């Protein structure tokens, strides 16, 4: 079976600086892939390249058998790749439900000639709201649907971000430190949700994470980056016992 996502010899130069050097990786369907490495090792840049937020200097990105290397962020999103950020990027002045409904495309109520007349789009909106309810249920935020996003806890904000990504029915979710700034207990819960989404909906996750103790409990496969290079890859057990990784990463 071909992997869902394949990176072939990706390179990214910023001026004279090589942020990512010849990285190749593959993510199978229905898996949680960890991407770890010290600060500045090029993990976030790699995420940007995949999502189309930056353009690689060389190399190809293959998604579901299709070359998406040169597509715009918008087009990549449409192909089924969604991403979350380290800092929760939400519409804090809107309710949880509104935040989840925002990415829905091609609604009648988006047209100015229909928008003022509720009856033309209320039915459609109800359908979207149903989908939104399902998604919120998946991340266990349903009881907060009418809360302003700014009133959520840090962990809930992360979950809301994931829920918003799910509205686009993605096949692959790129998450950049989903537990940053979140209490350990909540961080663990976030990963539990992620695992459930993988199991119940077959979504693949590519997760940049510093909290290895949590990541290692959930990840199916781990890539380690160092100074823009791929240092090692393997299952959690393999990585945890890899001498090179231990040296650069854990300093022993």
């Amino acid at each position: 079976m071909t992997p869902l996502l394949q990176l072939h010899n990706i390179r990214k130069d910023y001026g004279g600086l090589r942020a990512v050097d010849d990285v190749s990786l593959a993510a199978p369907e229905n898996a949680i892939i960890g991407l770890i490495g010290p600060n500045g090792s090029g993990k976030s840049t790699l995420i940007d390249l995949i999502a189309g937020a930056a353009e690689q200097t060389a190399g190809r990105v293959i998604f579901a058998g299709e070359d998406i290397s040169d597509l715009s962020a918008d087009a990549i999103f449409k192909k089924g790749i969604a991403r979350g950020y380290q800092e929760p990027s939400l519409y804090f002045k809107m309710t949880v439900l509104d935040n989840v409904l925002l990415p829905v495309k091609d609604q009648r109520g988006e047209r100015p000639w229909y928008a003022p007349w509720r009856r033309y789009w209320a039915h459609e909106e109800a359908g979207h709201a149903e989908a939104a309810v399902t998604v919120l249920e998946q991340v266990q935020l349903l009881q907060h649907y009418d809360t302003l996003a700014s009133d959520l806890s840090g962990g809930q904000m992360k979950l809301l971000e994931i829920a918003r990504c799910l509205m686009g029915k993605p096949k692959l979710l790129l998450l950049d430190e989903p537990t940053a700034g979140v209490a350990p207990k909540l961080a663990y819960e976030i990963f539990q949700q992620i695992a459930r989404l993988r199991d119940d909906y077959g979504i693949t996750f590519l997760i940049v994470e510093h909290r290895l103790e949590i990541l290692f409990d959930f990840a199916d496969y781990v890539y380690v980056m160092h100074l823009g290079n791929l240092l090692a890859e393997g299952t959690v057990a393999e990585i945890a016992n890899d001498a090179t990784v231990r040296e650069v990463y854990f300093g022993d």
Partner: protein
Amino acid sequence: MPPALLTTSLVNTIQIGSLYALMALGITLTFSVMKLPNFAHAEYVTAGAYAALIVSLSGVLNPLVIMIAAFAVGALTALISHLAVFKPLEGRDVSFYTLILSSFAIGLIIRYILFTMADYFNLFDLRIAIPLQILFREGYLILSNLFAWVVPTSIVLVIILTLLLNRSPLGREMRALADNIILARVIGIRVERVKNYTWLLVGGLAGVAGALWGLQTAVHPLMGWGAIISVFAAAILGGLSSFSGTVMGAYVVAFSENTVMLFLNVNYGLDLAFKPAIPFIIIIAVLLLRPQGFTNLIKRAGDLGR
């Protein structure tokens, strides 16, 4: 202050305030969603007024048809100015000040296109041919059919726009653009399309305001420009971000220009020629004392925030 004067000035306040509100909401909306203080807004008003005038001169006196024509022409003028000027400029990532200046420039261009047209067809200082009548008279209170048109139309349009913004999917996206346009792009909102729709609404409302303003005064290429400072004062009172604040601001400006002005004239002999200075005083006072205007004075939905 004689009771007749007080009554008339209050009626004028409501009537003119409603028109200011209709014009000022568009300014608030463009500022929030597009981050653009658009001085060409005045010209969308004038374009709408001329559309209404031409329709009425062609013999169609159905107010609804006149309004729709004014809406369409105002909306189209706004959309064209966006597509031809503002959008390419935004693409070049120019500064805020360049955008303000370009809004002045495009306003001038539209104004002098209208001037040329008005000169060619001799359409100066004409009035939309709906005769003015007294509908209601009780003591000092006199209400005309103009009042009956202007006030409900404005209020209904303001309510529709508020609902659209707060309840509809389009409004949700407009609020998202106002709050964080980069995130809007990231989560796949079709930003350019939402912008186009916003321009259509802004221009359309300005056009309708122009048609109604043309009933209040005479239609002239400078009529929108003549009102723009008062309208900006109203929007600034609304903090350029709050719908309810903008509507309140519109009535405050109209109240100052009518009732307060006449009160000062009657009691302290202040010259009526002072009237155009009032919106400037309001603007300066707001900027000095309360730059956020009425925003957050009453916390509520409809604030587009910044």
